[in-house]
């Protein structure tokens, strides 16, 4: 069953406005937090074991503690770029409860002592940006933002910044470059953003859900939050279920929830007559799980890592047996070929190469050696670049080829798909713009 820690009142429309939000206990936690000492808030978050909900799963408390201890100006950025295919939880949270995000951000900003924060939303979410802008106006009008918030002497300004269509801006430093008005290309690390990020000042970048999760932790305390989820992966998380499943959507469940129940109970199972073939558990860059592996998997960071994949952003894509895995891989390699920012050579050329090899197999002109070449190229792209996009491009290729190799070999030998029997004309490899 769902445990609606954050999404309890999402079904109420007025919850989107300030009055509706306050009626359900909104901004009380902010008042409580402003009375606490900032370091106490950080310790509380660290004690709660909250880990990043955006995809990396890095402990939020630890990330906050990297900030230098002086009172040099620092920024809090909310990463709402949500470009990972399969993920649509941030959009729902921003459209249904903008004030929840704003309150979480003010508490976090107070904890790390930041005077200015931005919410970087991907350009396509025009509606969500509109809702956020209106919520910010309401918050400023109600004295919850700007100078001397709720009389606590802490002043903070917040603004929404719209992106313009680039998956790479979901990466921490890519987003920072985009905010600085440059091309959204990731920056060299070190220096890490906590030391030198936006405009070379210390910067903390957190996902929408991570910042919203700060509210229950401060309201009920770290111990109460740790009751949900498993020992190392605490709390609840939104999972975006999509693909060949009857009831796709966002479900908030405690971590450690079984993947099988998520698909067949909450997700309403597959279409009649179809069998489960593969599940991508954590967004398109997470290695794929076969049906058997999916049956015994539980949705938490440790189990996913143990099965050789990642919890990532919690986007579960269900693939049934009516789909050809080579075609699905071609779709993903085209995505990464289109979204690579082109800064580092292994990723810029490698994503293009992988895409062309898969599409030459799809067009029936593949050779058996191509399959091993895919593995070699993907292996030599991993870990060689500034950001993790080349790893994200390589992992699907490696996992698809390793776990569904017979299907690739059939395609090469027969020149057509084992499942659908079709071949794709070779034009697909060309990029349109």
């Amino acid at each position, binding site marked *: 069953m769902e445990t609606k820690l954050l999404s309890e009142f999402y079904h109420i429309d007025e919850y989107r406005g300030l009055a509706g939000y306050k009626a359900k206990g909104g901004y009380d936690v902010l008042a409580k937090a402003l009375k606490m000492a900032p370091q106490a808030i950080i310790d509380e978050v660290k004690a709660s074991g909250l880990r990043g909900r955006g995809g990396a799963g890095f402990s939020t408390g630890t990330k906050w503690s990297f900030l230098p201890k002086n009172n040099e100006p620092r920024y809090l950025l909310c990463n709402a770029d*949500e*470009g*990972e*295919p*399969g*993920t*649509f939880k*941030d*959009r729902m949270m921003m459209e249904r409860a903008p004030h929840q995000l704003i309150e979480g951000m003010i508490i976090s900003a107070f904890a790390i002592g930041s005077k*200015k924060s931005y919410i970087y939303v*991907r*350009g*396509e*979410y*025009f*509606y969500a940006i509109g809702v956020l802008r209106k919520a910010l106006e309401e918050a400023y009008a109600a004295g919850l933002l700007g100078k001397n918030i709720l009389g606590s002497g802490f002043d903070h300004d917040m*603004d929404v*910044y*719209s*992106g*313009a*269509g*680039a*998956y790479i801006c979901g990466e921490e430093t890519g987003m920072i470059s*985009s*905010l*600085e*008005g*440059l*091309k*959204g290309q990731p920056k060299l690390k070190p220096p890490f953003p906590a030391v030198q990020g*936006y*405009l070379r000042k210390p910067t903390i970048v957190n996902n929408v859900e991570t910042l919203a999760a700060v509210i229950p932790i401060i309201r009920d305390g770290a111990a109460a939050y740790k009751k949900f989820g498993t020992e190392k992966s605490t709390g609840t998380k939104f999972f*975006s*279920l*999509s*693909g*060949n499943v009857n009831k*796709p*959507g*966002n479900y908030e469940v405690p971590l450690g929830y079984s993947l099988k129940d998520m698909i067949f109970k909450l997700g309403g199972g597959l279409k009649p007559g179809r069998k489960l073939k593969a599940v*991508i558990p954590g967004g*398109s860059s997470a290695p794929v799980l076969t049906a058997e592996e999916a049956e015994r998997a539980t949705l938490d960071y440790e189990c996913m890592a143990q099965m050789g994949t990642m919890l990532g952003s919690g*986007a579960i*894509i269900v*693939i049934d047996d009516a*789909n050809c895995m080579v*075609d*699905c891989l071609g*779709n*993903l390699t085209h*995505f990464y070929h*289109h*979204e690579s*920012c082109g800064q580092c050579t292994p990723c810029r050329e490698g994503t293009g190469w992988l895409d062309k090899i898969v599409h030459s197999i799809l067009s029936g002109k593949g050779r058996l050696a191509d399959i091993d070449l895919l593995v070699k190229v993907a292996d030599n792209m991993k870990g060689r670049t500034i950001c993790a996009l080349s790893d994200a491009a390589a992992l699907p290729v490696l996992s698809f080829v390793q776990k569904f190799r017979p299907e690739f070999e059939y395609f090469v030998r027969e020149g057509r798909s084992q499942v659908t029997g079709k071949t794709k004309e070779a034009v697909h490899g060309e990029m*349109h*713009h």
Partner: protein
Amino acid sequence: MIKVTENQQSAQFQLSAEGTAKVKSELTRYEDKMSAIIPALYIAQNENRGYISESVIKHLSQIMDIPESRINEVFKFYTMFNQKPVGRYHVQVCGTLSCHINGAPDLIDHLCKELKVKKDQITEDGKYTVSRVECLGSCGTAPMMQVNEVYYENLTKESAMNILRGLK
């Protein structure tokens, strides 16, 4: 020897007075004036029939006092800024994995056939451009499309065509 010349076919682009004021306000809104490039490009694209030409970049460069190559770099990096003219309604159908396995390719072919236009081209009446785009963050309601600023979800071939016909 190919000479990179400015194609003269687009007349010198001028932002409207109100557009210029918005761009000027964006310049001072953020911590650093370079952050105003993306908002400025959005404003210019809306005033230039949905796409950005070279003279737009020259004009923005004069107003914002930022080198042309910096603005051009940002403009050509992001996919939501169109380099070629598009129809009044830019029908962007998502084609990434969750939509792909829920029938997005057939939907795109169907729309192209119905509107008698090839991908990324404009229909004769200048009303529609159909193009395949990457994940729009609405995978739970696949297949779906975004027309200018509005998301239309859980589409079938018929419902999509009805929506498009309904647009003025």
